[in-house]
């Protein structure tokens, strides 16, 4: 594995920034462009940059569980969200939503619109991250 110092130093800046950006896109995505899928892609780019610069062992240590479980947990979340509506006797995936009044520093409160779809989106986020990281991991092992 040949990595340059520039990449390592850069990665320290890029990885946390893109992870935060992924979270931002995830929350933004309900009514505006964004959402779990794109956020998952951004997050996996961050993880892959980390892998490129510090090696796959370091990535393993960073992730709490194997990325395959990411996929399974994400799918469970997505399916579970739909299933709650189903248990309540509504059509599958019926979404609940409401507003959360968040205080801001400039005085006026900010209304954040939440929806139960966000849990589904979190599932999508995890599946996408798991799939992309897992696939690139397997493919680059083949190449080495």
């Amino acid at each position, binding site marked *: 594995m040949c990595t340059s110092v520039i990449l390592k130093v850069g990665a320290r800046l890029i990885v946390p920034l893109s992870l935060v950006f992924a979270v931002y896109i995830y929350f933004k995505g309900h009514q505006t462009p964004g959402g779990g899928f794109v956020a998952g892609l951004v997050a996996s780019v961050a993880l892959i940059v980390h892998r490129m610069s510090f090696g796959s062992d370091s990535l393993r240590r960073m992730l709490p569980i194997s990325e*395959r479980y990411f*996929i399974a947990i994400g799918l469970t979340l997505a*399916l579970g969200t*739909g299933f709650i509506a*189903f248990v309540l006797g*509504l*059509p*599958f995936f*019926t979404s609940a939503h409401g507003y959360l009044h968040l205080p801001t520093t400039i005085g006026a409160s900010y209304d954040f619109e939440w929806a139960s779809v966000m849990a589904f989106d979190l599932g999508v986020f995890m599946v996408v991250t798991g799939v992309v990281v897992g696939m690139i991991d397997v493919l680059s092992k083949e190449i080495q």
Partner: protein
Amino acid sequence: MTQHQIVLFVVLPMAAGIATTFLHRYRKAQRWVGAGFLIANIVFACKALATVVPNGDILVSQMGNWPAPFGITIAVDTLSALMLTMASIVCFSVFLYCVFQFDRDQQGGFFHPMFHLLILGVQWSFITGDFFNLFVAFEIMLMASYAIFCVGTSRKQMKQAYKYVLLNLVGSTMFVTLLGLIYGQLGTLNMADITRLAMSDQLPKSSIPVIAMMVLVFGGKTAIFPLWYWLPDTYHTLPSAIGGLFAGLLTKVGAYVMIRVFVMMFGTSQAITDVVAPILLVSAGITMFLGVLGAVSMHTVRRILSIHIISQVGYMLMGMGLAIATGIASDIKEMAVAGAIFFIMHNMVVKCCLFLCGGLMVEHAGDDNLEKIGGLLKRAPWLATLFMIAALSLAGLPPLSGFFGKWVLLSAGFQSQHYVVVFFAVLTSLFTLLSMLKIWSYGFWSPSMGKHVDKPERRPTTVGGMWGIAILVIVALSMGLGAQKYYTMCSMAAKSLIDPTNYVKAVLGEQNTPKLAINDMLPETSPKKLVIKSDSYETSGH
């Protein structure tokens, strides 16, 4: 079964897939969980059938509670319920076979999750009421099948898998492109909504070629005449159980979708049936005849069975073609569709069963080349019995299921005076019997060939696999001996496909359903007027 519960046909296999992914290190738990989910699947499918059949009801659920043409609809009508029941039984038998006959390597890793996800794709295509969603379901099914293709990898298998993947990628690309074009021209992808447009004759002329091109997409999946070249090369390289699963489900999903699309959605539109019906009928004759000729010329069990899939697809096509051909009375059309549905159900079960039998023949004899094996009748008398029943029912001998399917199709052909197709169908039937007898006489009947592979050192354990086969044979026998019951259900399904008013009504609601010219009634007294009257009454009262 209430209407929102139909989503369980998607949720259950998906949950099974997830659970078996979590359990991928614990093989035993994986099997038990899988078996549990598959049995639940059969129970729910039977429940859905019992709910739908008595009155021809249609269970509809709108995903996320979005109203019909905008959201995604899933719907179970009689046709879907029949397909679900048969498919779930086939899945369970193949599962039994895989669990007991596959060795550790073949079942290792992620075989079980992929198996359940394949079922997810299949069942989803049976219940979806949305065209784009159908594409998604197809993709899931194909993705899982690509992965399963690599089970017990051999070099030959990988080479053919490559071909399979490539062909299906082309098919999918075409499918999604056509969906885009259809959406552009009709403004909707909801099946009921498109049916509504077709019924009220609102399809633009430019959409006709696009819809006709759909024949290519589904024809490729179903393996009809000019597009079947991929099938005989790929299926015979697979382990028999997987071959059985693919043969029993994948091509039949294609046939189901063709019925749904060309008979129900566009069957009422003269402009489209004029183009599609001749294609289907001509292709039906050629498909069945060439397919069976191929089967007769082959010398290995799996190859014979693989090519046979194609020839059987021809009969289904014949039913569909007759159902939408012009100048045929509607009761004959109904008969043709019912025959095609019956035939699909029969074929799912019997074809899969024969593949499993072929697998056990390999277990016993060590090979499935008919010139090298023999004497299996003495070695495995039960296997021979079950194979005989399945083979004769595929060939269509009287008390068995194949006979009734063919009988209905042939008499529909006779009554509508399409003698050429009928002639080919009868001829094909004879050759089918010939090719089945070939397997029988070389594999089972002929004396053992001594020095060859027919004497492996150990006696293989085949009890589990035999159970899988036995279940399928019992279902096939019930279809033959209780043909009247099955046929009544099929003709009910056919009735609601030929006149899809009820389907449209169930999905889109009363006010959006176009009235066919026959049903045109006098304008009702509008409820609005009554309201105004009562209002005026009230105001005057005050």
